[in-house]
């Protein structure tokens, strides 16, 4: 399984890079801003790690760059790749229009044809076809850049997209876990310090501690006492509620 792990490493590297760039621009971001920045850099990194070979990765970048505030970040992260990408995306836009017009034509023809031959068998199959078409429409909405693809390439892109999403989720989970543990560790040490050494002067300790959101600290202590065994997303849920 070398390909997925290399993809993951690439993704991680680029994501961290993106995070740094995001963080350097604005200080003291709110929770939502941070979350948006994290997600954006994760998506961009995922697309970047794919080297923009797939359609969805290019579409992802295009969507991300539509908003002005994100555009700058994206450009910074990508660097030179951005310009190259823009050039290639222009060509794909023309293809999209052509595909779309062709589909409108096809759709109108099939509707006429179906109405004329109204045997029961044909109706049943047409219902099935309509179901499939509905679902493919939904899928097209989900996969970035899917609107302008025919069914066959849509499936291929979906395959790739699912694969990359899984890797992304995996990396993010590990990262979240690691940071959670290290935070817990820190809290643990502080707690122990507090418990053991009340007599010593810990002014500096309180200063350090004060930099953390206090609620998180308190809750993490609780978690520590409960035990580290339950490291599931559930604990993450609790953390998130705070801010």
């Amino acid at each position: 399984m070398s390909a997925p792990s290399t993809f993951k490493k690439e993704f991680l590297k680029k994501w961290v890079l993106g995070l740094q760039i995001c963080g350097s621009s604005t200080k003291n971001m709110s929770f939502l801003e941070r979350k948006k920045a994290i997600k954006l850099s994760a998506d961009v990194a995922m697309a970047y790690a794919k080297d923009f070979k797939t359609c969805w990765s290019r579409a992802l970048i295009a969507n991300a760059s539509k908003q002005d505030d994100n555009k700058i970040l994206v450009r910074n992260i990508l660097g030179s790749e951005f310009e190259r990408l823009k050039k290639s995306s222009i060509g794909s836009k023309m293809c999209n229009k052509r595909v779309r017009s062709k589909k409108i034509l096809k759709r109108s023809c099939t509707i006429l044809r179906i109405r004329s031959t109204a045997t029961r068998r044909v109706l049943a199959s047409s219902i099935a076809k309509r179901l499939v078409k509905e679902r493919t429409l939904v899928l097209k909405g989900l996969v970035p850049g899917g609107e302008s693809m025919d069914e066959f390439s849509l499936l291929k892109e979906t395959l790739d997209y699912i694969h990359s999403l899984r890797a992304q989720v995996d990396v993010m989970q590990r990262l979240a876990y690691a940071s959670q543990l290290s935070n817990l560790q820190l809290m643990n040490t502080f707690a122990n310090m507090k418990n053991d050494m009340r007599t010593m002067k810990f002014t500096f300790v309180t200063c350090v501690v004060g930099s953390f959101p206090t609620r998180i600290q308190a809750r993490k202590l609780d978690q520590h006492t409960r035990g580290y065994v339950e490291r599931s997303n559930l604990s993450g849920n609790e953390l998130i509620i705070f801010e």
Partner: protein
Amino acid sequence: MNRALPETLHYLEYITGNVMGAPLKLQQQQQSQHSYLNETQFNVFSLPPQATQVQQLQDLINNDSEVRELVNQSMKSDPGLENGWPDFGKYPIPRTGFATTSSLEMDYSISRTCTSPPTVVVAERDSVLTDKMASTIGRERFRKRKADKAQNPKVVVAEDTRDKRIKGDAEEVESEVTEQNNNRETSADKSKENSMVSEVQKPDYIHVRARRGQATDSHSLAERVRREKISERMKYLQDLVPGCNKITGKAGMLDEIINYVQSLQRQVEFLSMKLAALNPRIELNMDNFFAKEMFPAFMGSFPTVGNSSEMGNSAFLQFNPMQQVVTCGLDMAINPPDMALRRTTSTSITITLQQVQPSSHWETDLQSLYNSEFLQGRSAAFPSQPFTGALEANNLKMEM
């Protein structure tokens, strides 16, 4: 000639009187990649109850030089067929997963049909084989014959076609072969077949059919190719999406895929929220510790490493806003964070809280510190410095 396979399979399905019906057909379509399937068809014919007929057939074919030539020509491109053909009389049943079951099913049904007039079957079969060598012609004919069962054309037409094949030019037949190869009749519409059946009766039906077939068959050919590609992709997706094994229809599969993609996207959102909550500042670079070992280490990192109590507790937190930490070769082994949990409350605990400055000497600083603490297990005693407000420029070490 993998393209020929589904058609020959359809053909066999036909011989068995469409006993299997739709599921087998679907399977056959999906398995069209396997060249083994050629062998399964031969297998069918080589079952013991049909051994005599097989022998007859083989003799027939071997005796007829022209037919053999035709057979060889059309078999050149298919190594599977080539391998199969010499061993005609003696096949092991190939183990190709479902293909074996389907071939077995076909076997039973064929043995059943064998009890009916054997001559017809022989005639059918030998024309089957010759047609298979021609790759599509006989199948078409048989499928069309379905509409004309009452008219008793089977033996007649079979004989006719066989004779025709033998009599006709090798080139002509070959060109038809290639044409038929191109026009894989794929239309399942009975109406189309009915319209084509009338062609069968005409003396030079081959030409007429080819011409007409070309008009419609190219569409159906393309449609068949497209459908097969889509079903292949759906198979891959079935493997990728968990819990899709039981669902067979396209609509259901698409539903599952949609659900899965949505859940993955939601997971990403959720994890990004979690990370935002966990880290007060976005540039969390303590994870760079794990970057090098994230994947191997995470497997075994959480069982705790038992370290001696003298070993300093390493609460390395680095708040590192402006640095390219990724590139800063952090090659040191990080003690798994769980180590802190096992820290005993005995003598020496060294806690190092280090504020990293965006400076180049950070690296060397850190490394030296690290070396001193971990690798040598020394619990250093550092004087605690007065803290000046923010965590900007203080090395904070405390010994207890």
